[in-house]
């Protein structure tokens, strides 16, 4: 309420009554002044910094330039007195500084073709990344300016190599890739060629009539602003679209075809377009249940901030890692949350909302490896929520409640909160698996809830806890995002490794859960993390769920 008043003040839109109300607040409430000043300072900082950054990345339009100075020029006498000796001195200092800088940083600044600051920046590079310029190959330097004609090559062990343009467009090169920043064409447009390997492109909207062109040996991709991944091998170029549309021209027959979000094009002698990514691109293990699948994450990306939804259902609900420094991309795939961060969709998870609310059923599945047994909150493994107090569902890791206030309880269990018309907005009471199964090893964790309200937590195919979430999903909120790792407000982080996360709009049967367990983790992860002997035995055992008593829900005392 106060913020509305503050905002109206900043916009000079206060009514008479609101003016009096704000005056009363500033006069009478002890914290009113402080909050008001903090609000105004934040407004100023946001506006000032955002405007400066925008102005730095876009050439100022004449109108903008005119707006910058309305203040009349000061009287010459004043400025002569104040600045007459300072200006030459300042100019000398700047010239000397530039001389030193150019001497020391020539590699970063001196570029052929008159591109003093280059057309893009190599913002991240490690290992054996190199830049070839005018025939000479040199190790790359982070922060290095790149010019037209430069070739950037990555090695077999290199982590994310990121090239950023001034408009925010980003190219992330995978290992063993080579990209050329092309000469020619309109100087204002971007043109690159991926000679070999793979890259992830996140391209900002381009000026009308000046699309970015990404060439490969087999295709020319015309990009106006979107996000996609490209692979090049000797026979084909594959393009997997995450957002928007690109036009793909086949170099062999000259045919052109638009590729939209969720589609994959394979360009060789001809162009084939499919509705979902090929298995080796999606990482989805064969034999998994697909009926009702809404979102699937296999963590196949080896770099960058994006985790792709490879379900092929509707528009991809990709997730973004908030702080890439807090995570490790594991060598054979998988994502390790080493420090607290959140991996969340940019937009509300509408497709999950729509499908689950319609059926009043849900399955949340995760192949994970917890880093710590004692994680509490519950620590958020998979969540569709707004804050620590409002959610549609959260699958988490928690402790048993101790017998006394001082007793922290026993660490290591899994828990589920689910909003229905019979639970609160926080999805409580919580269903918990009582047997303390959270171990520091690869774990197959599944929660199901069917339309009758019956809910089960499965660990490694075994139904460890059965309960009930009565009611329906009519109270679900369509504005909540899907997230891994913690809440958006920073609460209750979970640390560990993700190998697969799936959300279904129906309750999988025990047989289907066994099938998913049998299918295992994405095959490239399996090189690094092998199922345990117990999981292996479960894989081959006939399914025989142990009879469970249906218990009443157990109330968790975790308040948030």
């Amino acid at each position, binding site marked *: 309420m106060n913020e509305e008043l503050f905002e109206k*003040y*900043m*916009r*000079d839109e*206060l009514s*008479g009554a609101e*003016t*009096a109300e*704000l*005056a009363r607040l*500033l*006069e009478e409430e002890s914290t009113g*002044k*402080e909050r*008001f*000043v*903090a609000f*105004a*300072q934040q*407004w*100023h*900082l*946001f*506006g*000032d*910094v*955002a*405007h*400066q*950054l*925008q102005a730095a*990345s876009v050439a100022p339009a004449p109108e903008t330039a005119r*707006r910058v*100075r*309305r*203040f009349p020029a*000061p009287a010459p006498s*004043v*400025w002569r*007195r*104040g600045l007459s000796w300072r200006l030459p001195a300042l100019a000398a200092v700047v010239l000397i500084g530039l001389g030193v800088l150019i001497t020391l940083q020539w590699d970063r600044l001196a570029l052929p073709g008159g591109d003093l600051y280059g057309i893009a920046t190599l913002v991240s590079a490690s290992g054996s990344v190199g830049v070839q310029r005018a025939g000479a190959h040199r190790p790359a330097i982070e922060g290095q300016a790149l010019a037209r004609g430069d070739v950037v090559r990555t090695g077999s062990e290199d982590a994310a190599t990121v090239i950023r343009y001034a*408009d*925010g467009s980003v190219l992330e090169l995978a290992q063993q890739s080579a990209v050329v920043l092309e000469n020619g064409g309109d100087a204002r447009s971007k043109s690159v060629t991926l000679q070999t390997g793979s890259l992830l492109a996140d391209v*900002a*909207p381009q000026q009308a009539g000046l699309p970015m062109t990404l060439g490969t040996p087999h295709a020319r991709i015309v990009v106006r602003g979107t996000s996609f991944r490209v692979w090049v091998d000797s026979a084909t170029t594959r393009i997997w679209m995450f957002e928007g549309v690109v036009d793909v021209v086949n170099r062999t027959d000259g045919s052109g075809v638009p590729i939209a979000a969720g589609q994959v094009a394979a360009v060789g002698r001809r162009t084939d377009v499919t509705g979902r990514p090929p298995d080796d691109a999606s990482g989805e293990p064969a034999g998994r249940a697909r009926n009702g699948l809404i979102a699937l994450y296999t963590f196949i990306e080896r770099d960058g901030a994006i985790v792709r939804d490879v379900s092929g259902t509707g528009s991809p609900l990709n997730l973004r890692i*908030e*702080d890439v420094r807090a995570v490790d991309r594991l060598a054979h795939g998988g994502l390790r949350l080493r420090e607290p961060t959140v991996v969340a969709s*940019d937009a*509300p998870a509408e497709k999950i909302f729509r499908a689950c609310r319609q059926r009043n059923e849900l399955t949340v599945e995760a192949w994970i490896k917890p880093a710590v047994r004692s994680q509490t909150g519950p620590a958020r493994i998979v969540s569709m929520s707004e804050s620590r107090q409002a959610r549609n569902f959260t699958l988490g890791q928690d402790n048993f409640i101790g017998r006394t206030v001082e007793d922290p309880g026993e660490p290591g269990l899994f828990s589920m909160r689910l909003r229905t018309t019979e639970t609160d907005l926080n999805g409580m009471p919580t269903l918990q698996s009582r047997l303390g199964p959270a171990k520091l090893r690869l774990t197959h964790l599944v929660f199901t809830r069917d339309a009758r309200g019956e809910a089960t937590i499965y660990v490694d195919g075994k139904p460890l806890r059965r309960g009930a979430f009565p009611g329906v999903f009519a109270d679900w909120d369509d*504005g909540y995002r899907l997230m891994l790792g913690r809440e*958006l*407000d*920073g609460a209750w982080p979970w640390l560990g490794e993700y190998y697969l996360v799936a959300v279904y709009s129906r309750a999988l049967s025990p047989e289907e859960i066994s099938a998913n367990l049998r299918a295992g983790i994405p095959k490239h992860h399996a090189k690094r993390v092998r199922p345990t002997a117990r999981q292996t035995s479960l894989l081959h055992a006939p399914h025989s769920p142990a009879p469970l008593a249906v218990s009443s829900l157990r109330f968790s005392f975790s308040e948030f």
Partner: protein
Amino acid sequence: MSVAPDKKHDAMVLKIFEYRDALLAYAFTILRDWQLAEDALQETVLVVLNRDAEAEPVRDLFAWVRRVLRNKCMETIRSRTRETTNEQERLQALVTEACDAYLDEDSAAGLKKMKQALRHCMGKLRSGSLDLLVGFYYRMQSCKHLAEQQGRSVNAVKLALSRTRDRLRVCVQRQLPLLDAET
């Protein structure tokens, strides 16, 4: 802080430049106009440069600069032709009082660091998010206006703004200790 007469112009101008962001935020809060706030600060610089070199040394330089800026803001408000009600004048006085109470040298230094962190964090935003911030905070456009401009719903714009602020808040919280460590 007392300043010797022969160095005081330089010290004052440097002080203004050092705490330019905080002083500008101060003027902006009172005037609510980017250009008028800039102008008021420019005029404050002129007052400093015009000050008689033989005048008494200033005891609290920052407070003195802030007072000059405040007077310049008041002059600007008075020069507006629009009539103001008693209630508006009362509010103006209270706003100025609040700004005075919470702008000292320490808070100005804090604001400067905050801006440094925010600049780093905003630099990582996508251009669409940056455009939204510029539209809302710099151009003072309403959510409704931005929604029409971008072909989105008002709620979607509010949500996007809220998320961007969340991201920035978290990023700035992470960035500030790093800046502290650097200094």
